[in-house]
Structures are given as structure tokens and as C-alpha cells.
């Protein structure tokens, strides 16, 4: 510590040590806030299957799309503490299949930037993303499950994920025909 340069280096060196430990404590403090997410309502009673041409560069085949509207009421305020930067929340639909047995589609998502935006109340909200199956057909599938997922992004520390609110047994209806008749899937 005899000269200016050495003192400056010493202060800066010890600063990095202190900063590292404070950041570590901040990351650990996230454990003091257990996630307690309430999903009061999640479900859909408005699903239609429509045929359409994919707006994708790799295929232009006609396939089935689900036009889905859903209800969601969730309170994520417990996820917001001093170390929360933002929360990413999304709704996914999971359904079984014969050739591909596990299918999951994210149908809607949002970024919650602050505690004041942490209550989600959605009524008859239209799915944000197009819902189609890898085989191109999924009319009449049973046991579609809607689930609500969240992902906390902290300022310091690790990302945490969680899922709650599963609705079992939503059924995708048959294909809607221009005439109004429905045709069940094979």
C-alpha cells in the first residue's frame, strides 16, 4: 500500500471480492421467498378446428389448426421479490397421440415486468400462436390438457421454473366445414 497505484489496485481488488459475496447472498436470498402461485381459473370451452394452408416456407400442405379461446385467472405476485427482474408466463396444451405420444404446444405467453402486472385475468382470450400438430391432423383428439407455466428471471441467481393449474380432458372437436357440419377425425 506504499504508492497510489498499489492502493488503487488493492481497493479495486477487494471491491470485486465484496461484490462477489454480496451478489452470492442476493442469489441465496431468493430461497427465502417460496413460490405460491394461485391459478383460480384455467380452461377452455371454445375450441374449433379449421383447415388451412400453413404460412411456412417449408411446407404448404393443408393441415388442421385449432382455433382456441381460453380463460385464465392467476396471481403471480408471490414470485416478485427484490431479486426478480421479470417473470415469463405461458400456457401450454399437452395431448397424447398414436404415432407421436407426447405433444406440447405453447399457445399463449406473456412477460410480466413488475408486481403491479402480476395478476392475470383473461376471459375468452384467443391463443397467440397457431396450434397445429406435427402430423397435420388432430381433430377429435381427447385428453387435451391446458397447463400454466412460469419462469422467474432474477437479477442475480438461477432461473426457476414452475407449473400449476392443469385442466384435464379438453376435447378437440371435429373439423368445421363451411356448411356448418362437423366431421369427426378418423
Amino acid at each position, binding site marked *: *500500500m*506504499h*504508492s*497510489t497505484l498499489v*492502493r*488503487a489496485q*488493492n*481497493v479495486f481488488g*477487494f*471491491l470485486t471480492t*465484496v*461484490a462477489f*459475496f*454480496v451478489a452470492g*447472498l*442476493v442469489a441465496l*436470498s431468493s430461497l427465502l421467498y417460496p413460490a405460491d402461485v394461485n391459478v383460480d381459473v384455467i380452461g377452455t370451452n371454445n375450441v374449433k378446428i379449421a383447415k388451412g394452408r400453413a404460412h411456412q416456407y417449408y411446407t404448404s400442405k393443408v393441415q388442421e389448426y385449432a382455433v382456441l379461446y381460453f380463460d385464465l385467472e392467476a396471481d403471480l405476485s408471490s414470485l416478485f*421479490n*427484490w*431479486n426478480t427482474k421479470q417473470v415469463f408466463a405461458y400456457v401450454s396444451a399437452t395431448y397424447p397421440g398414436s404415432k407421436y405420444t407426447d405433444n406440447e404446444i405453447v399457445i399463449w405467453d406473456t412477460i410480466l415486468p413488475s408486481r403491479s402486472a402480476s395478476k392475470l385475468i383473461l376471459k375468452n382470450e384467443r391463443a397467440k400462436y397457431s396450434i397445429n400438430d406435427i402430423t397435420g391432423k388432430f381433430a377429435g383428439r381427447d385428453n387435451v390438457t391446458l397447463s400454466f407455466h412460469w419462469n422467474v428471471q432474477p*437479477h*442475480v441467481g438461477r432461473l426457476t421454473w414452475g407449473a400449476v393449474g392443469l385442466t384435464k380432458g379438453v376435447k378437440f372437436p371435429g373439423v368445421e366445414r363451411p356448411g356448418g357440419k362437423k366431421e369427426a377425425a378418423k
Partner: protein
Amino acid sequence: MDQIQSIIDGFIDFEGQRLAETLTTAILVLAGVLAFIVGYVLSDLKYTVYIGLSGTVIAFLVVVPPWGIYKRNPLTYLPASGVQVQMVDGDADGGKEKEGKKVK
């Protein structure tokens, strides 16, 4: 020119070095602890960052310049005798540089 050099070097005495070391540790640790507590209590990481940074600025201002309190115990050397002095073995570690200066 020598004056500029001495300002840039900012040499301080041994007691001053001990004090500077203690102050660095104390100020930075205190700032870190205070930053964590205030941020936690007020539930905003912004305070943690700003208190931590202010502590760092204070530590730099207090420790880096060669303030008077770091120069209160100057070493007094024996007057130069003008005689060529032979370096004694066993005194080669800490005092070597200063011994060398003393000898003309």
C-alpha cells in the same frame, strides 16, 4: 518535476500503510453489508447497487490519495556520513532499498 513525481507516486509511511489497509477492508465490507441490508429491507436491488458503488467511491477517495494522516510517522534516517558503508549481510530483505538510498 520532482514534486509532480511525488504527487503521482504518493508514498506514505509504514503506519500509514497499515491504516490504509484497515480502512480499505472496513469501508468496503461495511458498504457491502449495508448495501445488502438496505436493499433487502426496502425490497429493491437498486439500493444495493447504489450503496455498494458509493462505498467504493468513498473507499477510493479515502485510501488512494496520500492524505496527511498516512504520513504522520515518517522514518528518520541517520545523517549521511559521507563514508562508504559496506552492506551488512542479513539485512537484504525489507530495508535493502532504503539502505541503498542512504548510501551515497
